[in-house]
C-alpha cells in the first residue's frame, strides 16, 4: 500500500504546552484510519498541523513523498485533502447547494468570459458542477434541501452536508473530526455505513472519534495519542489489548 501522508518528528507546542510531540505516522492509501485518545490528547491539533492550519514547531509533513510543511491550507487542500470540523462549520447564510459548490471551488474554472458574459448559472462549467453537486447531495439524501439556507438545517443534516462539501473537492483523503458528536445510536449506525460506503468508493478516510464502538467497527488501523505523543498503533484488536492504551484511558492500576 502506498503511503499518502507521512509525518516525521511532528511537534506543535503552544507556549509550554506540548500539544503534539514527535509524532511519526502514516496514512495509507484506501484505508480507514482511526485516531483516538483522551480529551486534549492532540487529535485535532494533528489534523490542523497536517493540513497546514498550524505551522509545526518541529518536524515535517509529506504528501505523496513531497514535503508540504508550511504550505497554506488551501494549497494543502489542493493536493487532495479535505476535512470536516468538530464544531460544524458550514457557510450558514448560503444555500445547501452553494455550500457544496464552494467545496468544488478547485474544480470549477469558468474563466472571465463565462463569468461576465453568460447568464448566471448558464455556463457549461457551472451546469456540470451543479449536476455533480446534486448527485452528491442525492447520495447523502439532501437533494430536497438543495435550495434551503444551510444554517436552518437540522443538526444531523448539517453533519452530512459538511461531509458532502468535503467530498465535493474530490479529495484523496477525507479527514473527519468527531463526525458522530451529538448523534444518537441510530444516527451513529447510519454514519458508520456512510463512512464505510465512502471508503469503498476509493477514498482514504481518517476519523477522529470518541465513540469506541464506531471506531473499532470501521477502522482498518488505529493510531492512539496521549498527551501529544503516539502511544500505540495497530489494528483494532491489537489496540484493544494494548496495555498502554488501557492505561491512558483508565489510568494505571495502583500496586
Amino acid at each position, binding site marked *: 500500500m502506498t503511503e499518502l501522508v507521512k509525518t516525521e518528528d511532528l511537534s506543535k507546542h*503552544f507556549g509550554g504546552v506540548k500539544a503534539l510531540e514527535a509524532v511519526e505516522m502514516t496514512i495509507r492509501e484506501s484505508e480507514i484510519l482511526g485516531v483516538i485518545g483522551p480529551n486534549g490528547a492532540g487529535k*485535532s491539533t494533528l489534523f*490542523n498541523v497536517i493540513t497546514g*492550519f498550524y505551522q509545526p514547531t518541529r518536524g515535517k509533513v509529506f504528501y505523496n513523498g513531497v514535503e508540504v510543511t508550511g504550505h497554506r491550507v488551501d494549497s494543502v487542500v489542493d493536493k487532495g485533502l479535505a476535512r470536516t*470540523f*468538530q*464544531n460544524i*462549520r458550514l457557510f450558514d447564510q448560503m444555500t445547501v447547494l452553494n455550500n457544496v459548490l464552494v467545496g468544488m471551488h478547485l474544480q470549477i474554472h469558468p474563466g472571465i468570459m463565462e463569468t461576465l458574459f453568460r447568464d448566471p448559472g448558464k455556463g457549461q462549467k457551472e451546469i456540470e458542477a451543479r449536476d455533480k453537486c446534486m448527485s452528491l447531495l442525492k447520495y447523502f439524501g439532501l437533494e430536497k434541501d438543495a435550495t434551503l439556507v444551510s444554517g436552518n438545517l437540522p443538526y444531523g443534516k448539517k453533519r452530512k452536508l459538511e461531509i458532502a462539501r468535503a467530498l465535493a473537492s474530490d479529495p484523496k483523503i477525507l479527514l473527519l473530526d468527531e463526525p458522530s458528536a451529538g448523534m444518537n445510536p441510530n444516527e451513529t449506525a447510519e454514519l458508520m455505513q456512510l463512512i464505510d460506503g465512502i471508503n469503498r468508493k476509493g477514498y482514504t478516510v481518517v476519523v477522529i472519534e470518541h465513540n469506541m464502538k464506531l471506531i473499532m467497527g470501521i477502522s482498518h488501523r488505529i493510531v492512539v495519542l496521549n498527551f501529544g505523543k503516539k502511544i500505540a498503533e495497530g489494528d483494532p484488536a491489537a489496540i484493544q489489548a494494548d496495555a498502554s492504551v488501557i492505561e491512558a484511558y483508565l489510568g494505571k492500576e495502583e500496586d
Partner: protein
Amino acid sequence: MLLQHLINGLSIGSIYALIAMGYNMVYGILELLNFAHGDVYAVGCFAALGLLTMGVHPALAIMAGIIVGFVINLFVEKLAYRPVRYSGRVTPTITAVGIAYIMRNAILKIWGPETFAFDIGVRGSNLQFGGIIIGTLQIYILLIAVSCMIGITLYLKKTKTGQGIIAISQSIPTAALMGVPVNRTISIVYGIGGALGVIGGILFCIYYDSIFIGIGFALGTIKAWMASIIGGVGSLKGAVMGAIMLGLMESMVSGYVSTLYKDAIVWLLLIAFVLIKPQGLFPAQVAEKI
C-alpha cells in the same frame, strides 16, 4: 529642540493613552470596534462645559461629566449593543457607528460646531531646564494618566468584578456558568470605558484650553484606533504604549516634517506599520481554535 518635542509628545501621548485605555477595555472584552467611544465621552466633556459655564465648581463639573460618560455608556450598551452582542462582527460595528452619529449630532444640535474656551482655573506654570519648557500641567496630566492605568490594572487583578471582567473576556458562556453576572459586568465595562474616556477628554480640553466637537471622533476615536493599531487591538498594555508612541510620532512629524500633512503622514506610517506587524506590537494572546 528634540527633547522639547519628546516632552510634548509624551504629554499628548498620555492623554491619548487614557482615551485608548477606555476604548481598548471594551474592545478587549467584547471585541466591539467601538466607533462611538469618542462621541460618547465628548457628550460627557460638553456636559462638564455646560456646568462650568453655569458657574458650578470645576471639580464638581468634571465629576458630573465623568458620571455622564459612565451613565450614557450604560444606556447605550443596554439599548444598542446588548441586542446585537452575538450577531457576528459587522452588525455591532455598524450599530456603534449609528450611536456615534446620534451622539455627535446631539452635541451639534445643543452646542454647535464652535470652539469654546475650557477654563477650569488651573493655570500651569512653566518650569525651565536649560532651553526646555515643561508645563506643570503636562506633569499633572502624566501623573493622572499613570494613576488611572495603575488603578485599572489593580481593579482588574484584585477585585471580584475585575476578575469577572477577565473571565468574560475569555469566554462569555463559561463565565456565565461560573456565576459571573454577565450583563451587569459588561455594563460596568462600558461604564468604566466611558468614564475613562471623559477623563482623557477633559484633560485634552484643559491641555488646549478649549473644547470643540472634534475632541470626540477626530481626536478621540481615531487616536484610540491609531494607538490600538500600534499597540495591538485588545491589549491594555498595548493601548498605553501605542498611545505614547503615537504622541511622540505626531510631535516629531509636526516638528520636523510637516504640520499640514501631519494626519495623512501619521496614517500612512500606520498603514506601513500594519504591513510589517499586522497584529500590532503586543497582540492579544488568542490561539485560533477550530
